[in-house]
Structures are given as structure tokens and as C-alpha cells.
């Protein structure tokens, strides 16, 4: 009987814990619980450590407003902090080699736990964008970049914008779907310059 009573009290305590004193968990509580459960559900593998589940301020804010446009002040804060963190070329030259840029745009490997950590790391730009007209296997998550420079003009301002956008897309559009290639250390500065050239070099097939 004592044991039964203990079981009964335990059940009540468990129920109270589940229901949080008979109220539904708040949205913030559910988010916190989801993050905790997520972190307990992965194991480190190769180059992908568990620290990849730790969010920086931008990731956290964008998760909070997922599926909705963040409020204006939040969006401005995200864009400001990301813009300030961009590492600009010391020599003021934003354009590298567009041919190399094309290889980087095609390369889908890099940063997956199944990838050789010493192997190539690409931008996989074609996964989401149309770029050169020769490549018909392109995705549509991002806008077409065909004739990127030709349509916008080859000004220094536009070169700088293209470089900055590839380095850190959230600096110009808070919570963009696009990875922050330079900021997050996916591509090197030279690689970012090469991809910028693919979009902005008048000789690139993108602008033909």
C-alpha cells in the first residue's frame, strides 16, 4: 500500500512536471526545450563537432523569427553587426580569378562530416542559383545571377557589394538563406574574391 501511494505521488509529480502546473509551455520554453533535445540527439563526427549546434546571435534571432520577417529593429541590428564584421581586402581589390570562381561555384564538397577535412571546400553556388548560361543544372532557392555585373554595372560600389554579400549575406538581408561564406570560414578570402570575379568580371561568361 505504501509502495502504491509512492507510485501514485510519483505519477502526480511527473504529470505536474509535464504540464508545468497545468499550463501549456510558452513558445520560448518550447524553443529552449527543442534546442536542448536537439543538442542531445547528435554525436560529433569527423570535422563536424557538437559546437556546430551552438548558435551565434544571428542564428538565434533568425531561428526565433523563422518563417516571418523579423521586426525592423531586429533586422537592422542583425545587418549592422554582420556588416561591421566583414573583412575587406587590404588592397581594395575585390575581384580574383573568375575561372577559379566557376570551379568554386560548382564544388559541392566541404564542411560535411563525410568530407575529407583536407579536401576541397566549395561554395556550391549552383545548388541555389543560376549563374553561367552554360550550366543548366542549377537550383532556384536563390535568385538568378546570370548577367549580374552587366545588369548592375561594373562600378567599384557594386564590386564591393558583391564581395560583401558573398562574405556575409546577412549584412544586407537579415536571415538570408545564403551561408555567410567568408564570415563563417567556409571560403578563404581569395575564394570569395574569385567568386566575386565570376559575377563581376566583364570577361566572365556570366556577363556575356
Amino acid at each position, binding site marked *: 500500500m505504501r509502495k502504491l501511494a509512492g507510485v501514485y505521488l510519483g505519477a502526480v509529480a511527473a504529470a505536474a512536471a509535464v504540464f508545468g502546473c497545468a499550463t501549456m509551455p510558452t513558445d520560448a520554453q518550447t524553443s529552449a526545450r527543442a534546442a536542448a533535445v536537439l543538442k542531445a540527439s547528435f554525436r560529433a563526427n569527423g570535422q563536424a563537432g557538437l559546437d556546430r549546434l551552438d*548558435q551565434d546571435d544571428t542564428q538565434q534571432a533568425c531561428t526565433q523569427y523563422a518563417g516571418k520577417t523579423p521586426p525592423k529593429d531586429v533586422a537592422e541590428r542583425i545587418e549592422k553587426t554582420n556588416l561591421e564584421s566583414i573583412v575587406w581586402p587590404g588592397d581594395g581589390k575585390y575581384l580574383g580569378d573568375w575561372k577559379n570562381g566557376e570551379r568554386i561555384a560548382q564544388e559541392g564538397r566541404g564542411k560535411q562530416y563525410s568530407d575529407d577535412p583536407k579536401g576541397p571546400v566549395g561554395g556550391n553556388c549552383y545548388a541555389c542559383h543560376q549563374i553561367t548560361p552554360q550550366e543548366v543544372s542549377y537550383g532556384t532557392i536563390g535568385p538568378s545571377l546570370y548577367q549580374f555585373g552587366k545588369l548592375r554595372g561594373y562600378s567599384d560600389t557594386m564590386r564591393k557589394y558583391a564581395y560583401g554579400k558573398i562574405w556575409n549575406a546577412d549584412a544586407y538581408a537579415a536571415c538570408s538563406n545564403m*551561408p555567410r561564406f567568408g564570415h563563417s570560414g567556409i571560403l578563404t578570402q581569395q575564394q570569395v574574391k574569385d567568386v566575386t570575379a565570376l559575377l563581376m568580371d566583364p570577361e566572365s561568361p556570366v556577363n556575356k
Partner: protein
Amino acid sequence: MPAMIRRAAVRAAFCVGATAIATTACAQTSAVDEIAKYRAALQDGNPAELWEARGEDLWKTPRGPGKVSFATCDLGLGPGVVKGAYAQLPKYFADADRVMDLETRLVWCMVKQQGYSEADATKNPFGGPGQKSDIEALVAYITSESRGVKMNVAMDHPKEKEAFALGEKMFVYRGGTHDFACQTCHGEDGKRIRLQDLPNLMTVAGAQKAYTTWPAYRVSQGELRTFQWRLNDCFRQQRFPELIFTSDASIALTMYLARNANGAVFDAPSIKR
């Protein structure tokens, strides 16, 4: 498949339009048409049947240290009942006090009823070259017994509600080197990655269309792939660490997607590129 895309692309290159933009649009349409034809051709005979047959044997044969079959394993509709079971999973199981998807329930039965250790029951969830997975075969058989059944995932128990709510949150969780969430690729209608169509899994129509076609025989891999595998490989491409087989997150995400697929007719194992 890559060879197929290349052939389609070569053929598409001969598709001439008046302007460069027209040429591109024309090439796109042809390549996509060719891939649609390829997919249609695949539907004629599905090697998944081999996995289904092996899974049926595994289900009915006494196995493990306990030498018992799955006849006592309750997938939610009573001990040993397979018909229609997958279409009502994941669900809360009182004996385990946990919401479980099919794979998690199978592991539970293997441990509690057949006497396997947890490590042995979970050591080979996904097959590879020269390494067959019993879990994949069992899943192929059990899911095939729900073909034609309407998805009917309950959300009555508080833990079922909790799993759905957590899965919904996890779906939009941004992380990793690339800031990707599930939502990045699966949150808008009509998008593609390269030439691959992406379902919008945040809509009922998108979840219904996608969820009811897994598991699938993947031609490019020569393997029958389960929904646990689908989630695991999505996270790999998302640049996350490795999703643990039958983890709480895997079940919560499955709950979110399966529940949203309610009302649609289950139609798998299917065949995919």
C-alpha cells in the same frame, strides 16, 4: 543518374531559342522533362520488393538470444499486427513511456523481447556495400503493409503533442557553418536544389507528398532507405554533426512531418533516383 542528367543536358544544348534567355529556359524545360521520363521509367519494377521479402522473413523468424519472433511486438495496433501499423506512427507507447517511430519501436522490441543488447540492436541501421541492414529490411516489409492506407497519426497524449511541438521548432533551427535549417531548403513552394525538386515540408500538401513516399529504394545507392536515414542524411548535408539513430530529435521531426501528412494515402516503399 548524373550520366542521365548529362545526356539530357547535351540534348537540351541543341534546343535553340531566339535569344540567350530563351535558350536557357528551353534547355531547362528539356532537362526537367528528361528527368521526369527517367523517373517514370523507374516505376516499372521496384527492387524494394527484395527488402520487403527479407523483412517479412525477419519479422516471422524467431531471433536474438531470446529466440522469439516479432509476433509479440506491438507496433500500436496490437501484438504482431503489421497491417496499417506504419500509417499511425509515431505514437506514444505506455510500456516504454515514450513517443516512438517505427525504427525506435523495432529496437525496443529487439531489446525487450528478443534479448538483444541496445548496442547490437542499433549497430547497423543503414546498409552499405557488403553490409545488409536488418532494420531497413524490416522497415521495408512493415511499411509495405501500409500501402494504400490513409496516414492517421494521433496527437492525443501530452507526449505526442510535445514531440510535434518540438519537431516544429527543430525544423527551423539554424546552425552549423552554413546557417542551414530544414526550412532553408524545405520552406517554400516550387524550389529546386540543382535540378532536384524540393518539397515544402511546412505545408500539409508538401508533407503529404513527401512523407508518403518514404522509405524508398535509392537507385543511386542501390539501397532501401528509411525515414531515419532521410533525416540523418539531410543533417549531414546541412553540415550538422551526425544525427543519432532513434534519438529524440529524429522522432520529434518525424512526428511533425508524419502528423502533417495525415489524410494522405501512404504509398511506399517507393523508388527514387
